[in-house]
């Protein structure tokens, strides 16, 4: 177990610098003009960030209101007694519900948690991990099956939601294991 924890933190330290050095080296070896290609691809980043503004603003407004009104605390107070003995912060539970349904909503809620509790708090770390480790199942099903006109999705939704649930539980377990 200790070894796994060490291995995962090494991965955190090395993954990004490794990709930053490996990809351009590999490309230079393949005779790609690395810097010009970088600039060309980087142009897309701006549009991508701007295009999500309406989604994030819409969800951020609703979530901020929900927290400021006290409704969030009322909702969380139901779950606290159930989760406290396990050492699981109740604040991450709504994220488990939002994640499969709306990507912008769960990203907004994750942002709200990071803002309220700090990125390096256990809640901030767990929320980041949950948000990063699964995709918006409902959206993926709509886009992929919608594109080819599949109406009966059979067990696809069940499998997707099941893996979201497992990912949610795994995120909490891994974070409690690594970061405490």
């Amino acid at each position: 177990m200790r070894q796994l924890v060490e291995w995962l933190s090494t991965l955190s330290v090395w993954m990004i610098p490794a990709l930053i050095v490996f990809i351009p080296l590999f490309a230079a070896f393949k005779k790609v003009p690395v810097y010009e290609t970088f600039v060309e691809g980087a142009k897309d980043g701006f549009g991508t960030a701007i295009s999500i503004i309406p989604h994030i603003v819409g969800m951020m407004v609703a979530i901020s209101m929900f927290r400021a009104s006290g409704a969030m605390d009322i909702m969380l107070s139901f779950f606290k007694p159930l989760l406290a003995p396990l050492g699981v912060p109740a604040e991450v539970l709504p994220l488990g519900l939002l994640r499969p349904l709306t990507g912008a909503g769960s990203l907004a809620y994750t942002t709200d948690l990071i803002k309220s509790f700090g990125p390096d708090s256990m809640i901030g770390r767990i929320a980041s991990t949950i948000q990063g480790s699964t995709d918006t199942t409902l959206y993926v099903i709509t886009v992929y099956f919608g594109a080819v006109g599949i109406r009966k999705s059979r067990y696809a939704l069940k499998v997707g939601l099941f893996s979201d649930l497992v990912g949610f539980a795994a995120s909490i377990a891994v974070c409690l294991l690594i970061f405490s």
Partner: protein
Amino acid sequence: MVNWIWLFMIVVSVISAAVTGKLEAVTEAAFDGAKTGVTVSFGLISILVFWLGLMRIGEDAGLLRVLSRMLGPAVRFLFPDVPRNHPALGYIMSNMAANLLGLGNAATPMGIKAMQELQKLNPDQDTATPAMCTLLALNTSSITLVPTTLIAIRLQYESANAAEIVGSTIAATAVATAAAILADRWYRSRASRSKRPPITPTYTAPPSQSGKGGEAVG
């Protein structure tokens, strides 16, 4: 669904604020939320510009193709009912490779192309085949090596170590993907044991599919 969640949060907020006398705080929170939304999105520009630039280098160098080839054996194992030389497999590999690098914009078109190819093998155009369900399962649990968006948000709120979640994310996503694959396998075996005739498509070479119905796909 999203419409209802959004409406629910807003309506419940205003009602409970009215009851507890927090209306001013809620109004302020609405504007503050909008501001946070814009600030966060702008904060994503730096990382997205940088990361997409880096990934374009990888794409132009053929990294997706190399990665796809490495994924070949896994894909053939996960999609036993797709013929080995079928173009669907290539698109599935590209889709998985793009997901791995966190290239959502490249992954989705590849995934849709793969779906269209799988639809050509589908005897019942309305109902998903097991292969389609497997592709979906892989995409809903999507393994990503670097959760760039989250790192960007953590940086904005001054994390002491923004990248420390890379390891935990990879571990959690690996477990979720394993669960998706196992659940998918289980449903597959159950589907083939049930009375419904198993969906094993008959594959003929791509150019000569003139005999099959007039329905255009894609």
